[in-house]
């Protein structure tokens, strides 16, 4: 299901969370990057039909989200993981997934139970499947959230920071899982972890202050950092160089800084190959 927004705007009182956003998201895995408050969650809530826009148009898989029928048609094929998803403490993961499955219209009891069990296995929650979720750790809750988003074989998966709060191993496992699902689906992934996008997405958009400041291939985003990423070595106790320091490692010969700056930060700065993070930081500096 492809996503098409034109002039999409959302205001909250005086705050404009989305400023006339034009986005065309094809199938496959698509990354959404942006600082805190950039508008990622607002965009995703609109796509999930949870929040109405203040202006502009959204079409998902050809359905107009402004109409009730269009919204319902999209929601039937949607898997959505909200940021900060809450769970019912008095249900077990198995019951919670069963409940969500029923509301997603999975009426065949046996098929639904089988799918719930498969998903619990997939997110490694089988052992606690029957335990009440009260007292579950952040990572366990997130895994329940990911599992419910995959119920009903959705054609569009919208996941808002799915890997936040997961340990590194789980994070890698989940982003691989999501990108594996992306084959014939659309997976929209928002995150602060640039590495997750670098490892899974061919295309990405970057948002800042409610606007889309970049859309395109992830490899192109890396190239924004070309000619703007430097390594500088300074003696111990010397002030860091100008520009955005993306890393600082102390070694015996001094401190090695990786710096993103449009101009050479110091005479002895050496240009280096940018990573996606460098490209992202360079973009944010513009």
């Amino acid at each position: 299901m492809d996503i098409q927004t034109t002039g999409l705007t959302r205001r909250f009182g005086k705050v404009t969370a989305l400023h006339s956003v034009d986005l065309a998201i094809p199938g496959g895995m698509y990354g959404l990057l942006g600082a805190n408050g950039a508008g990622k969650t607002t965009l995703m809530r609109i796509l999930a039909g949870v929040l109405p826009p203040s202006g502009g148009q959204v079409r998902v898989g050809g359905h107009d989200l402004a109409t009730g029928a269009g919204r319902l048609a999209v929601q039937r094929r949607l898997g959505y993981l909200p940021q900060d998803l809450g769970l019912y403490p008095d249900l077990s993961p198995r019951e919670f997934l069963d409940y969500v499955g029923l509301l997603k219209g999975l009426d065949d009891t046996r098929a639904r139970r089988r799918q719930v069990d498969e998903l619990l296995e997939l997110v490694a929650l089988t052992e606690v499947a029957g335990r009440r979720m009260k007292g579950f750790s952040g990572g366990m809750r997130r895994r329940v959230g990911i599992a419910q988003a995959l119920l009903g074989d959705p054609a569009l998966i919208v996941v808002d920071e799915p890997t936040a709060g997961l340990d590194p191993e789980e994070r890698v496992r989940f982003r691989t899982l999501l990108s594996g699902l992306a084959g014939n689906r659309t997976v929209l992934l928002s995150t602060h972890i640039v590495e997750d996008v670098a490892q899974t997405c061919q295309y990405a958009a970057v948002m800042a202050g409610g606007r889309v400041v970049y859309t395109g291939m992830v490899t192109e985003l890396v190239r924004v950092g070309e000619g703007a990423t430097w390594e500088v070595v300074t003696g111990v106790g010397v002030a860091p160089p100008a520009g955005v320091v993306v890393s600082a490692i102390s070694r015996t010969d001094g401190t090695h800084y990786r710096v993103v700056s449009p101009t050479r930060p110091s005479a002895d700065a050496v240009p280096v190959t940018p990573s996606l993070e460098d490209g992202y930081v360079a973009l944010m500096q513009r």
Partner: protein
Amino acid sequence: MSEEEGERVRGSGVSGMSELLAVGRYEFRMQARKRSLWLATAVLATVIGVFQGPRGPRYLPADAPAPEVMAGWAMLFGIVVPLAFGMVLADRLIRDRRLGTAPLLESLPVRPGLLLAGKYLGGVAATGLPALLLMLVAGGYETVHRGDPLILGWAVLAFALVMLPGLAFVAGFALTCPLAVSAPLFRVLFVGYWFWGNMLTPDFLPSLTGTLVTPIGDYQASWLSGELALFAGVPGWLNFLRPEPGAGSALLSIALLLLLGLLPLLVTHTVLARRRHAA
């Protein structure tokens, strides 16, 4: 999977009946697991059962008719037990915001009215169950005490006619009012209302006591027992709501209580729908 295949796996889902039952079932399950529901019901019922005054059903003469005895128990429990139910139900709707389950629920292909209706059904069922159990315990006690095997049947009937309509009425308000006034304030107001609207002598202050819209079930109990249960039909404020007790007025009271309980749900549904569409 193609679009059509996806639709087939999901069933028709046009009527929304299975979704409604799913919400009702899971809401019931979650509420029935609240220990406070059972504890409060048991404590309140024990206190009122043990310390009932000389007018209580336990002290009715040995030859008192079974319907009168069980209507008496239903009224007795009705004095305090619905207080616990109102307290428990007060956070059921608003907690979806607090817990953070609301965004997910709103993203599911289910009409919002259906979620509301399911929560209402679940709430009525979850408070009806302990109430029914109380009546069965009282009925069991009276069966032993009075030796009338039919008494358990009257216990169930008294539950259905005297208690259930009032519980549905309470559920409608307890679910929705906290959206407007917050749960703690609602709980305080509800206790005040319960005594004012059910038990306060009508000639003391203007009150809804003894009217058709008295959720404790005054009219239904008076009809079942053939005696004045509390104040049904006693002249007072809003006299048009105080007809003679009897079968007709009892059924009218049931209908009014059920409709009044649905009213706050309808209002909430309309207000929430308008808010959703206003961006």
